[in-house]
């Protein structure tokens, strides 16, 4: 062994940080002759503890495993399910509970933390849990299922501790069907990370989600039922609450017993004392992650632990890296509510200024803390809407670049920080990756896509909140480096969608094979096949399930229904203008009842039925089509619904017949395939009850006719539509909308909705007005023709499918077992209807039966 080689390395603890360390060691020293043994007491491969709550939503524990290829390195041995009981620093060995003795030259402690529970009477009762490991989660799930069965009623759950993990646990208990209360000792939720205003806003949101919140209360005693299981909790306020399942989330303590007993220096508040190199008081022993105490503190987050792992991996090979804690922020996740903060949350810096915007209607609370000259960003608190967190947190301690209030303005006046953040700013705090490293991944390591940068730097692979900023930096760097950001759609087509559209149209191509032979290579993929399908459909190449087109369709278009999480589908008939007769309602009700479909009014004025098996779709649609209904294309990249308000027919302010126009537009554009879905709204007056300006096309009545707005969007990046033309009569309105849609269909990129298409249109809305309204380019007639052809060729997809036995073949569940269907489907009851059951829940394979199950969650 050379003096600088770490020789035999042993890591105690096989958690997240140990995994990072092994991974770093391997990539830092691809050839070195070191040997690494990682010993952990949990029985599983090291897993992503941060996403533990995913197990509650049905995810398999195996899917949480952290990149397993690390363990395939022949120099690395992973031992799971073995606890290290003794550390002998003189002999340089560790000994496990089963007597295995492992000698080391270099020892790394990565033992993490344990979940601390206060010494309350009754914490040892059955039904009381902590929340730290996969085993904890499995135990809670099993308990919830069996206990509910024993008691024959829904459970009441109590979570003690109102911090981020407590709130996550509360949402999980709710998900298991328990009515849930959170008990918090402090006077507000997330009291470490939120100020009073933020804590209060969070309470409102959490309560609205159905979780009861009791602050300034401590659990003082747990009481047992006759059979000995937990049943009640006495609080310090004098109240007693029912408690069939209890989760303590009252903080963590470093697991430092081995270090303590072997005489290593221990911090005042626990944890193995380390310095900037992460060495402990014994030069052969290092400590990383939550068990390490740096400057008197152990940090319960993965990012600083990963940084420590990197430091030790560097130090072991004589590298220079040392540990400097980066300021951390906290973001609540898995609780169905947004809350995040970073930096000087309480404005304690002398002279700090706080700019706060509390919006009781939108239920948001946002605060930015800046230095006394209002320039330097010192901290922020965001509840209800944490979208600013990801973009502002990296700027902590730096110039904000705009007036703080501009960031908080409802319309987001100040641009979010973009691709120009300084190199040393940490963009991804989870994987500790700076803007500089992201740029280097592009300029030095040749990455050309966000995916490659993620794989190369690990940025964006943990919580994902940095991905938007990461994407901006990658794109900006590629452009700066003069690297043309590849325009290729995928490996099969080198051109973007708009170009392919023109080529297909000019070449008169009608099938995928023709298109790929003329302009592409290979046999296509999930990206280009649906694009070609959509282009062919926009150009009137026939039913989407004609033999040559069927193989191109994503499953949604292939079976004319939208795939749900369990592999079943939704059924959404078209309801033009939101008008529906009682007769049709009756048929919908009968179908839903007979097939046990979960039924709800959708967000777009129609009725969705969920949970239809693939083999049931034809029978369901037969009934609907016979009753005069047709496909609502809720599955296609095509027109969704035209939302309208009641308008002049009934409303005392209505100036035009908005329902009539809504129906006319819906019947005109139904089934029209486009680069992405599009939506239309029609309001009968400027009060705008149809929210038309949030749609791709918004039509608003005026005294003289109609104003038309384009490029609106709800969804992920909301945008108000911009005014394209004013005071149009009915026919002229239809013509302008025709042209707008046709131009969009011909020139937009794949999966680009109208909002970004309009925003990026060269020359902006003025130019669009010239082209579409004034026909300055003389393409009006050609655009009109595209829509006219569509209207002439329209036929209901479901009707024609039902008429064609060849197409119906696609709907069988098993090719060799007619009449059988997927035996793995299972449903449970919720609020009187069926929904897919989660593991451990009482379930029945038939949703008709499941709706009436006595609920045992």
């Amino acid at each position, binding site marked *: 062994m050379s003096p600088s080689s770490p020789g035999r390395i042993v890591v105690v603890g096989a958690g997240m940080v140990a995994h990072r360390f092994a991974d770093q060691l391997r990539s830092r020293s691809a050839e070195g002759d070191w040997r690494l043994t990682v010993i952990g007491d949990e029985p599983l491969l090291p897993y992503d503890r941060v996403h533990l709550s995913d197990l509650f939503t049905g995810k398999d524990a195996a*899917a949480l495993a952290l*990149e397993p290829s690390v363990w395939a390195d022949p120099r690395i041995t992973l031992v799971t399910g073995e606890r290290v009981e003794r550390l002998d620093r003189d002999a340089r060995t560790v000994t496990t509970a089963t007597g295995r003795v492992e000698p080391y030259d270099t020892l790394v402690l990565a033992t993490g933390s344990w979940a601390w529970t206060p010494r309350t009477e009754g914490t040892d009762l059955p039904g009381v849990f902590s929340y730290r490991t996969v085993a904890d989660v499995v135990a809670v799930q099993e308990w919830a299922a069996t206990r509910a069965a024993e008691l024959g009623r829904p459970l009441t759950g109590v979570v003690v501790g109102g911090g981020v993990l407590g709130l996550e646990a509360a949402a999980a208990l709710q998900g298991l069907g328990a009515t849930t209360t959170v008990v918090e000792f402090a006077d507000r939720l997330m009291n470490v990370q939120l100020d009073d205003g933020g804590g209060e806003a969070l309470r409102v949101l959490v309560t609205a989600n159905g979780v009861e919140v009791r602050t300034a209360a401590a659990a003082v005693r747990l009481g047992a039922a006759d059979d000995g299981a937990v049943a009640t909790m006495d609080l310090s306020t004098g109240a007693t609450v029912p408690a069939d399942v209890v989760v303590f989330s009252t903080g963590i303590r470093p697991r430092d017993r081995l270090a303590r007993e072997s005489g290593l220096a221990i911090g005042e508040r626990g944890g193995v004392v380390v310095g900037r190199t992460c060495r402990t008081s014994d030069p052969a022993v290092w400590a990383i992650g939550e068990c390490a105490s740096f400057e008197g503190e152990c940090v319960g987050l993965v990012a600083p632990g990963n940084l420590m792992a990197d430091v030790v991996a560097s130090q072991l090979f004589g590298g220079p890296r040392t540990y400097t804690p980066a300021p951390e922020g906290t973001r609540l996740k898995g609780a169905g509510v947004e809350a995040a903060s970073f930096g000087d949350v309480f404005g304690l810096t002398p002279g700090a200024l706080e700019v706060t915007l509390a919006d009781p209607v939108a239920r948001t609370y946002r605060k930015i803390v800046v230095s006394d000259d209002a320039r330097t960003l010192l901290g922020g608190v965001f509840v209800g809407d944490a979208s600013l967190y990801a973009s502002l947190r990296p700027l902590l301690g730096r110039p904000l670049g705009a007036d703080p209030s501009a960031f908080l303005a409802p319309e987001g006046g100040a641009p979010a920080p973009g691709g120009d953040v300084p190199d040393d700013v940490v963009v991804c705090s989870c994987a500790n990756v700076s803007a500089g490293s992201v740029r280097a991944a592009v300029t030095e390591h040749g990455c050309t896509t966000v995916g490659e940068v993620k794989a190369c730097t690990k940025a964006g692979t943990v919580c994902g909140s940095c991905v938007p900023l990461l994407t901006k930096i990658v794109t900006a760097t590629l452009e700066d480096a003069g690297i043309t950001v590849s325009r290729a759609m995928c490996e099969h087509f080198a051109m973007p969608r708009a170009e392919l559209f023109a080529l297909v149209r000019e070449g008169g191509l009608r099938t995928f094979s023709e298109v790929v032979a003329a302009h592409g290579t290979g046999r296509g993929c999930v990206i280009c096949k649906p694009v070609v399908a959509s282009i062919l459909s926009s150009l009137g190449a026939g039913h989407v399930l004609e033999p040559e087109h069927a193989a191109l369709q994503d499953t949604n278009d292939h079976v004319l229904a939208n795939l749900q999480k369990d*592999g079943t589908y939704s059924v959404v008939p078209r309801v033009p203008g939101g008008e529906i007769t009682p007769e049709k309602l009756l048929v919908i009700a009968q179908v839903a009842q007979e097939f046990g479909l979960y039924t709800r009014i959708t967000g777009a004025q129609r009725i969705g039925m969920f949970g239809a098996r693939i083999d049931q779709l034809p029978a369901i649609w037969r009934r609907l089509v016979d009753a005069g209904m047709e496909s609502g294309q809720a599955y296609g990249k095509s027109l969704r619904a035209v939302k309208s308000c009641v308008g002049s027919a009934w409303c005392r302010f209505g100036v035009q017949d908005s329902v009539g126009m809504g129906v006319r537009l819906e019947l005109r554009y139904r089934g029209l395939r486009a680069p992405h879905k599009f939506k239309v709204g029609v309001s009968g007056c400027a009060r705008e009850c149809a929210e038309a300006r949030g749609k791709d096309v918004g039509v608003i009545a005026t005294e003289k006719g109609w104003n038309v707005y384009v490029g609106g969007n709800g969804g992920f990046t909301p945008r108000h539509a911009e005014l394209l033309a004013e005071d149009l009569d009915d026919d002229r309105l239809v013509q302008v909308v025709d042209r707008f849609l046709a131009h969009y269909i011909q020139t937009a990129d794949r999966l680009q909705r109208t909002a970004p298409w309009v925003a990026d249109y060269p020359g902006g809305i003025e130019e669009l007005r010239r082209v579409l309204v004034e026909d300055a380019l003389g393409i009006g007639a050609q655009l009109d023709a595209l829509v006219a052809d569509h209207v002439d060729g329209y036929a209901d997809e479901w009707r024609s499918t039902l008429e064609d036995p060849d197409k119906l*073949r696609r709907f069988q569940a*098993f090719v*060799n077992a007619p009449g059988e269907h997927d035996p*793995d489907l299972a449903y449970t009851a919720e609020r009187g209807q069926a929904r897919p059951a989660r593991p451990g829940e009482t379930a029945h394979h038939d949703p008709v039966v499941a709706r009436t199950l006595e609920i045992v969650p």
Partner: protein
Amino acid sequence: MTRWTAVCALADLDPERGVTALVEGHQVAVFRLADDRVLAVQQKDPYSGANVLSRGIVGSAGDVATVTSPMYKQVWSLESGTCLDPGGKPAHDLVVFPARVDDGRVLVAAP
């Protein structure tokens, strides 16, 4: 000795599309390629747990025939079951079921 189950006729399959077959109790996704080869993998999507892989889009990555999960869009080689694009998640490979065409009939075996 491999025990083959005849699941359907080749003519029952559309090129570049899958069907589901029951083979000795396993749900199997069976695909016919453009060149009439037939390949089969497990029907269960390891990422969502739903039995849906036969409904994914068939294509190619380089020379390898692929299928993409219709649920979260992970991509696998249909030939080896290797996960080619895990979409940022840990890679989970698929179980491959031996499949062949004999006299116009599609035969699949349990692995």
